[in-house]
């Protein structure tokens, strides 16, 4: 630990500067002392009642500096899309601060990340690391069907490095068969259970692409495995999240897709969900459009269109709806995969569950979904969220895959505002913590990495913090009325809106919208209060009437 601290100390060229002025949009200017610590940029006016700025270095996406005389301006652009300005007098101080921030915000070593140093200032009521264990989730499944078993074939992560140690597979397939299937699927990601639809017993599975290559290689065990999930005489759907030509091209690199001839009981559907740097580009362009100050309507609309962000939202949501439709309306099982099965595949499987399963629309259920379908399922959070929309460096593995998923959830929430137990703030919170956090939940790229990093022992889980009454209160939707039905969102362009809560969050004052939200809460709270009052009056009355026989004696 000491070693680490020394390492930070080396990076911090100037730990403290006085007389720094902070400009934030829609907030009063603050003048105070700027301090750099190993993990935070802190600006404090040292006055009561003035909000301090605590910014995680890991939240900083990029910085820019410029000088007007000896007055330095540092623009700090954050991964949560906030942009703040610091004014520092003195060229040397400013340069030192800038280079220190740059060094501290680009530390690559996971073990130096803040979650390993963070000590909670709150009492952990329920340890989030134990809240969503796969064996518990499986118990629910067992109560509905006996066709599946939990396999430990991947317990040392050797068969599939991106899978968790426990996966649900068809009961009749032993681990030896699974090992064979794993060699036929990208990254060893053999088909596993993602969702069981209680209503009709249909299932959704996910996997990596089959490694058919140009020769049309096949794997009998793979065919048998997925066929085992079909009811006699029924067909299933394979949803390939890539356009057909992309899937074709994948053959040349050893990948491919299920050939009709080998999978006669399955119908393959290709959908074109974008991936990797295309998505990252889309995010960068969208954020650029939102920050354009030109005030020209034409320019805004054409930039919004050119960013393709809304197109991506529509495509992902449509594919998820399609998967849900196959399961619920067609009574067919579904297998979803793209290339690796760690990005677009998870967007589709998780959104389909939100549509189909009311349980996923509760606070706990949604956390469990993120845990199951994203963290356990091996979405490489650390790689994807290393940089956000303001990064100057060339994107490597960055992509706003999870943010797009959250955006799609927000779209459904907008269309069914009473069907979710959580509110928009919860989605925004997940976005923030996926990119920079004091909690260990989104560290690492897979269950295997998280195990190696000993996160449960060394860091605090985001869920431990979120699942406390005072936080939950802020994140709960006052309009919630459990809705046990499947909810089918509209995917018409008119119905899909720009997620203002994330993309315009720092560009406009949200005062009036916040007031409206408070007003809404007030209306509902007041109603509840009165209900309680009426009930207690009724009880009081009943009591009075029984207690005093005089009232009843004629």
């Amino acid at each position: 630990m000491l070693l680490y601290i020394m390492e930070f100390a080396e990076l911090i060229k100037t730990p403290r500067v006085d007389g720094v002025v902070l400009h934030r949009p829609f907030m009063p200017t603050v003048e105070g002392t700027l301090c750099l610590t190993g993990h935070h940029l802190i600006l404090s006016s040292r006055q009561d009642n003035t909000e301090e700025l605590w910014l995680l270095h890991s939240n900083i996406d990029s910085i820019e500096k410029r000088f007007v005389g000896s007055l330095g301006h540092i623009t700090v652009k954050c991964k949560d899309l906030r942009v703040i300005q610091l004014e520092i007098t003195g060229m040397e101080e400013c340069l030192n601060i800038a280079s220190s921030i740059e060094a501290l915000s680009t530390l690559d070593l996971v073990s130096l990340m803040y979650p390993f140093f963070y000590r909670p200032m709150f009492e952990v009521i329920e340890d989030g690391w134990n809240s969503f264990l796969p064996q518990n989730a499986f118990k629910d499944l067992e109560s509905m069907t006996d066709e599946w078993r939990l396999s430990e074939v991947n317990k040392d992560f050797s068969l599939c490095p991106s899978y968790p140690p426990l996966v649900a597979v068809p009961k009749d397939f032993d681990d030896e068969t699974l090992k064979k299937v794993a060699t036929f699927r990208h990254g060893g990601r053999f088909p596993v259970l993602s969702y069981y639809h209680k209503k009709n017993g249909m299932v959704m599975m996910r996997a990596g692409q089959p490694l058919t290559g140009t020769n049309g290689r096949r794997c009998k065990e793979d065919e048998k495995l997925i066929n085992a999930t079909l009811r006699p005489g029924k067909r299933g759907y394979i949803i390939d999240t890539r356009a057909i030509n992309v899937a074709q091209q994948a053959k040349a690199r050893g990948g491919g897709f299920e050939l009709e001839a080998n999978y006669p009981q399955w119908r393959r559907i290709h959908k074109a969900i974008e991936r990797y740097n295309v998505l990252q580009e889309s995010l960068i362009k969208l954020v650029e459009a939102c920050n354009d100050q030109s005030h020209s309507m034409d320019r805004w609309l054409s930039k919004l269109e050119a960013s393709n962000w809304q197109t991506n939202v529509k495509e992902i949501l449509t594919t998820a709806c399609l998967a849900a439709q196959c399961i619920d309306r067609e009574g067919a099982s579904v297998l979803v995969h793209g290339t690796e099965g760690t990005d677009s595949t998870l967007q589709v499987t998780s959104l389909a569950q939100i549509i189909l399963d009311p349980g996923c629309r509760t606070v706990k259920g949604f956390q469990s979904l993120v845990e199951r379908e994203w963290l356990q399922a091996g979405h490489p959070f650390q790689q994807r969220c290393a940089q956000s929309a303001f990064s100057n460096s060339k994107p490597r593995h960055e992509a706003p895959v999870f943010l797009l998923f959250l955006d799609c959830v927000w779209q459904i929430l907008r269309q069914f505002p009473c069907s979710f137990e959580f509110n928009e703030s919860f989605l925004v919170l997940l976005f923030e913590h996926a990119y920079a956090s004091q909690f260990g939940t989104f560290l690492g790229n897979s269950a295997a990495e998280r195990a190696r990093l000993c996160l449960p022992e060394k860091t605090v889980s985001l869920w431990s913090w979120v699942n406390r009454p005072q936080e939950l209160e802020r994140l709960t939707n006052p309009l919630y009325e459990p809705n046990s039905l499947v909810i089918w969102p509209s995917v018409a362009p008119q119905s899909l809106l720009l997620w203002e809560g994330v993309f315009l969050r720092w560009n406009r004052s949200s005062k009036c919208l916040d007031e409206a939200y408070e007003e809404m809460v007030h209306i509902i709270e007041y109603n509840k209060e009165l209900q309680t009052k009426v009930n207690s009056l009724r009880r009081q009355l009943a009591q009075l009437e029984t207690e005093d026989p005089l009232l009843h004696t004629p």
Partner: protein
Amino acid sequence: MEHIRLPKVENVKLLDRISHRRRRVGTLYLTATHTIFVESEAGVRNETWVLHSLVCSVDKLAATPSGCPLLIHCKNFQVLHFIISKEQECHDIHLSLQRLSQPESYDELYCFSYKPNVDEKERRQEWDFLDLKADYSRMGLPSSLWKLSPVNQHYKVSDTYPADLFVPESATPPVIVGSSKFRSRGRFPALSYYCKDNHAAICRSSQPLSGFSARCLEDEQMLEAILRSNPCSDFMYVVDTRPKLNAIANRAAGKGYENEDNYSNIKFQFVGIENIHVMRNSQQKMLEVCELRSPSMSDFLEGLESSGWLKHIKAVLDAGIFIAKAVAEEGVSVLIHCSDGWDRTSQVCSVACVLLDPYYRTLRGFMVLIEKDWVSFGHKFSHRCKHVVGDPKEVSPIIDQLLECVWQLMEQFPCAFEFNERFLITIHNHFYSCQFGNFIGNNQRERIELRVHERTHSLWSYLWANRTDYTNPLYRPNHSQTQGLLRASTSPYSFKFWKGLYNRFDHGMHPRQSVEDYLRAIQEETQQLEEHTGEGLHYIREVILILWLITVHSYYKSKEKKKIPPGCFSAFDKSPTVWAPGNNLGLANTPQDYTGGFITGSPCQPKGPDSILLPKSTNQISDASFSNGSDQESGIADLSCRSPLSEDSTRDPDSDEAAYSAA
């Protein structure tokens, strides 16, 4: 009736706009006032009523093997796609509807035959509901600075102006008349809004007939008088709402704009709102985008951009903000004009008023505003909304843009308006429906000639009677957001596409649960609870008092006993009306066409009770097109929400099969 060639056609198909594979079969009726489609399915009686006056165009398309398509576009943005099996029948319906939907004289309009069950006394009272004079006295007028001028009695000075007008105290009749001669259509500068706190006023007029160099002393005096009516300010703004180029072009025709050199202490400004023709084409383009079947996101956004619609809305709002700020922050009076001063000028005056004065954000206030800036100041409703056959170049959605500006503001300030979106949409519907007399004709003089107040009903009292449907549950009169000037954002991203209006009848596109309806239901329940707790507390106090009396009584005196009479507190015993949870919204929800039509062969979903998802029907008026409107709403919704996985196992020939391209 003589125009109806065919009163009834059977076996007509009504196609869903989005997915043509979904269709309903039924009988089509033509009546003197409505087209009615009655679905002939056992058990359900589903009717779609369309008022002839709401029909914008009727097109007969090329016949197909399944029949002859008839496409009806309505002014409230409803689109109906019928298939009539026999070409001759389609032809007859087409001709009849074309004639019925284009009245040749005012007397044919629906308002003159619309007779709800209201007696004559009540009908006359309807017209007393709004009083513009009351609004002017609310502003503090007449005052020592502004007076009511009789100069336009009998519409002698300007035949498109109202009879009652407020002018500066110092403006003498010769000045007014002289000024009017120097203004298009005699529309001299008159007061639209007066801010009694700082004496700043909004005045309106038409363009001056200045040409390249003409001057008019009286007009200059008139502006001087306006300036002097604001003792706190030493200059005034003259805002020409036209693009500069248009104004310059007008000079060649002997019209134009004010020369700053000729008028003392004016600051002249163009704000660049396009003319009625640009607006008409823009809305047309936008509607084409709304009507696209399964557009991609790019199709939609590109189409929206190239229509220019939101750009125009922004221009109107920008102009309104400029004026509102001049009045509220600088305390400077403003004279607004465009060419004739009845389109852009009305828009900008109204938007500024809504921004400035919380009163115009209330239900009654907004009605007053339309009555003031539009109806009385001679916005040419009958021409712009094509109530009767006429020059198509006169048609333009100027009033739609006012409603949209207000809607955009409502999105930014959810607590600031007493009314809701439904209120705006209902008003929009009736600008065009001709069901009420309010908007018939092009100015006050015409309405008097048509004896509108004697022969028709008024929309305003109808809306007021049904105001619970139009109330915003988030509105509180004392809320900080409700007070004072609205500081609206006009960043382009603050403008949204108004699907509630332009895709009004595509129910599948709208949120399936309405927060507003939910809150309204809660508020209704709260009200009941309040009554109950009030009664309850009162009752318990009484019981306690009685018990105490009894105890005291029995202790000291006799054994006299008292009993509460049964039922004296029945209201409290009744449990409050249980509020149906969650609007029960999910029930009716069925998937859209996510597949491009490749999945076939699954059973058709039974029809869900979609109507519960829809805005509450407001059919208090019998035989009103609005009540019929709500019928058609539920009808259409049934259709559009039906499962795309229809029983019809043939593939849709024109569906996009690209997605399903098995290798």
